[in-house]
């Protein structure tokens, strides 16, 4: 079926998935493959996928960990719907993933692990590799990874058990051969990571990687090899970046751009913990990182530091967001700047903590008691987290308001190449500081932004008190009915007015037509791909992706009106849909999915088609 040759076949893109036990190092080989592909000049998108247990019992379905990536010679927007090649380190990994592999796909298995015990743990009654139909269905490559690895490490001083652990790199080496990936970045990685501390390990991994690669060369049955050309991209310095990394860097940049010190305060929670961990490594940037006792405390610490003049940030996920609502209300009424990031995961409650979802949008808008509107924005890809962090800081500091920045597990853990920006090109962020030259009136507002000005403790003559009781303009507690209404309206108008500063919405496709797709957050890649494909097929479909969910952009209504139908695909049961319907009274079509997984391009393609025919 696929042409078997040992020379390269040129292809545009490929999707590879590694799957194995939680302890098999699948995330590591996935990361390496990504780096190597980036280094080779391809565009990439990744999808790590791991279980909620740290290390569920070896060999069981619950313990399977996976990593999928797509790389290609043009803009790659998603990690791919289905793998072209699947590496399965054990029967459980095979069982959990084989349904996704299309007929004829390459299937690399570690035959050594296909023993009766493992088969049973995976729930196989018999060995699928002995089934002739199965064998015919895929392009099967059976490797005794354990044996081959041991063989490659005959001379190594490592303990036998440690040797066997290197087998993931054998598989990686073999896949490098198949896809013609460079070995250098991975060899450098071994050297950087273990060269000094554990030189034997670095050496062993290198040997195994090369052995895997060589095996491709020397295998009796010649195999097809693929080649993916470089993606033509803008010139510049690139790096691979994940969403959480980009968020970290964006926050550091925002502090610099606003000339404030950065204080981050958080409580560990999947999938937001890497933000806390990433920032705590950046002490040399003067970043104050506090691991608080819970999410309420994290928010309180941030709010206190905000009062004291820092740029402050908390990141968490759904359960933590619940705990922050009361403090968010206080931040809103005291009009202090603060960034609250919600890296969304599957809910409700503990839900699916290691799966992705976009179901906290309405919570972001309405979690507080009282009328308490806040700016909400969402990042649409890993690197977009960088820009969104800066945008969130701009809004917070210029408008003196807490801001909610939504990310999600898919965006946070996924990675893509990023054109590293020139720091000097980044926009300065304006603060709204009080002047020491005039009497300080806490709630006197900037005419244009409606922001109040901030006086920082330590400044002479600006002593003042704030708090959660409603206040008059002068900051005194006020139970006056008209004042409460006026202050409430002013807070609402301030937030609503932020939309004046938004860039016009970017429309992919024609400015009018049959179907407009509106997306937000991590569905960007899948929606854009599906819409692009349909446009290529000649359909009248355009798509826009909203960064700002509150306030909504001023030009949105007009754009919507130019299309016959509007559809909102989202990984929830219709949350943006509700907002758009309420605001614009348009019969927006909702397409929800709630499976802890991103949209497939093909699902969207099919759905859009329904409304295009």
């Amino acid at each position: 079926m696929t042409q078997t040759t040992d020379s390269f076949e040129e292809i545009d893109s490929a999707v590879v998935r590694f799957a194995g036990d939680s302890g098999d190092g699948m995330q590591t080989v996935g990361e390496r493959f990504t780096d190597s592909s980036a280094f080779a000049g391809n565009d990439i998108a990744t999808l790590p996928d791991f279980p909620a247990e740290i290390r569920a019992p070896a060999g069981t379905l619950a313990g399977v960990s996976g990593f999928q990536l797509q790389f290609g010679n043009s803009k790659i927007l998603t990690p791919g719907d289905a793998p072209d090649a699947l590496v399965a380190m054990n029967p459980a990994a095979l069982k959990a993933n084989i349904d996704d592999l299309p007929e004829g796909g390459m299937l690399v298995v570690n035959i050594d692990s296909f023993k009766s015990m493992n088969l049973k743990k995976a729930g196989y009654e018999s060995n699928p590799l002995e089934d002739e139909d199965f064998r015919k269905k895929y392009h099967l490559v059976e490797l005794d990874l354990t044996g081959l690895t041991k063989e490659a490490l005959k001379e190594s001083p490592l303990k036998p058990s440690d040797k066997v652990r290197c087998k993931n790199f054998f598989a990686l080496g073999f896949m490098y051969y198949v896809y013609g990936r460079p070995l250098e970045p991975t060899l450098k990685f071994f050297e950087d990571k273990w060269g000094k501390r554990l030189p034997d390990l670095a050496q062993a991994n290198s040997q195994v990687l090369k052995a895997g690669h060589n095996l491709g060369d020397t295998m009796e049955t010649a195999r097809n090899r693929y080649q993916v050309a470089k993606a033509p991209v803008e010139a510049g310095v690139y790096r691979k970046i994940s969403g959480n990394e980009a968020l970290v860097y964006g926050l550091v940049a925002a502090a610099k751009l606003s000339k404030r010190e950065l204080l981050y305060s958080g409580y560990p929670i999947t999938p937001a913990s890497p933000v806390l961990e990433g920032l705590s490594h950046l002490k040399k940037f003067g970043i104050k990182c506090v691991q608080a006792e819970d999410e309420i405390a994290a928010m309180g610490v941030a709010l206190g530091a905000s009062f004291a003049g820092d740029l402050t940030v908390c990141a968490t996920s759904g359960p933590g967001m619940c705990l922050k609502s009361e403090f968010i209300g206080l931040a809103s009424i005291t009009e202090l700047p603060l960034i609250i990031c919600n890296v969304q995961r599957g809910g409700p409650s503990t839900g699916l903590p290691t799966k992705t979802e976009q179901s906290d949008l309405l919570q972001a808008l309405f979690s507080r008691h009282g009328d308490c509107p806040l700016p909400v924005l969402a990042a649409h890809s890993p690197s977009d987290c960088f820009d969104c962090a800066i945008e969130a800081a701009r809004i917070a500091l210029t408008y003196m308001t807490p801001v909610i920045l939504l990310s999600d597990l898919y965006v946070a853990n996924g990675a893509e190449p990023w054109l590293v920006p020139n720091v000097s090109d980044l926009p300065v962020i304006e603060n709204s500081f009080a002047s020491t030259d005039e009497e300080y009136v806490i709630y006197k507002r900037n005419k244009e932004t409606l922001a109040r000005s901030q006086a920082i403790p330590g400044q002479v003559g600006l002593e003042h008190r704030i708090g959660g009781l409603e206040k008059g303009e002068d900051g005194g507690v006020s139970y006056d009915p008209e004042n409460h209404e006026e202050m409430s309206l002013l807070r609402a108008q301030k937030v609503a007015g932020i939309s004046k500063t938004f860039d016009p919405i970017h429309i992919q496709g024609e400015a009018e037509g049959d179907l407009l797709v509106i997306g937000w957050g991590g569905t960007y890649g899948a929606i854009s791909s599906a819409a692009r494909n349909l446009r290529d097929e000649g359909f009248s479909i355009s798509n826009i992706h909203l960064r700002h969910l509150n306030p909504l952009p001023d030009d949105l209504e007009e754009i919507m009106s130019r299309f016959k139908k509007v559809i909102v695909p989202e990984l929830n049961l219709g949350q943006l849909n509700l907002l758009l319907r309420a605001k614009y009274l348009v019969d927006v079509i909702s397409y929800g999915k709630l499976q802890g997984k991103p949209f497939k391009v093909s699902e969207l393609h099919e759905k859009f088609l329904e409304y295009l025919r």
Partner: protein
Amino acid sequence: MSITTTDESSLTKKDFVTPNDVRWCPGCGDYAILNAVQRTLPELGIPREQFVVVSGIGCSSRFPYYMNTYGFHTIHGRAPTVATGVKVANPDLSVWMITGDGDGLSIGANHLLHLLRRNLDINVLLFNNRIYGLTKGQYSPTSEVGKKTKSTPVGSVDHPINPLLFALGSEATFVARTTDTDMKHMVETFKAAQAHKGTSFVEVFQNCVIFNNKTFDTVTSRDVKQDQVLVLEEDKPLIFGANKDKGIRLNGLDPEIVTLGDGVGQDDLLIHQPRNPNSAYANILAQMTYPTFPTPVGILRQLDGRETYEDALVQQIEHAQSGGSDNLQELLTGQNSWVVEG
């Protein structure tokens, strides 16, 4: 920011009074505590703009509105977190945290615990009136068992928290108690709290005239005070009584009251050593309560030398910064970038 400072040496109580009407009930103990704090602050040699008063919610927590400093009236139980944020952002500020027995020990005890163990250099004043004042008189976690209140018409059933034992259990480095009836003692105690480097926890017995009037009268009222209060003074023996003729002696680990004379001398008595690293001594004091024992007031425990959270944090940052530059461009570019030629 600005580098001008007010001239701290000329500050007086008046400088700390706001024009706002004070809105506690007439006769509330909070007035006396406000007065004491307003007398203490000008004497600390700290410019006014360096003070930040942070509170939660409760009658007591209205405090910041009446202090002409920077102030933040936050939400119920969470003042320790906001105070922590202020202090970490700017360790130069003198941060005072005001809380009540409900605010600090019911909804907010977890934050208080973590503040105490982290030992930020913050002064915590817990106004203990053994009742929820602002919500009009429900029992609080310091209310005695059997207390009849609006929410416990036939008496509360929960064993109360002893705030001092709680603070000791949290390994606080400064634990003290004072009373709203003794202005001099309050001012002294608050000064000592500020002088202590680390979190200072001060329980203040505070009278709520409306919902729990005279709850501390068995201990602190003028007529019984001499016999019911044990004033702790460092390195002094534990003596009390109108005639200074009673003292506290240890019998094994159990304290007992002895009368001086009849073969019992000052040498037999416990000597007050708040700086003893072993907390058993303070633990014994904290357990002494009416009516079995006189109630100790003063500094029960003062442990110097444990680094404050903010100092340690600043040091880590300074250490990291001494190492190398903080080049943002380098950070963004990272170790594994590649160049695409135009």
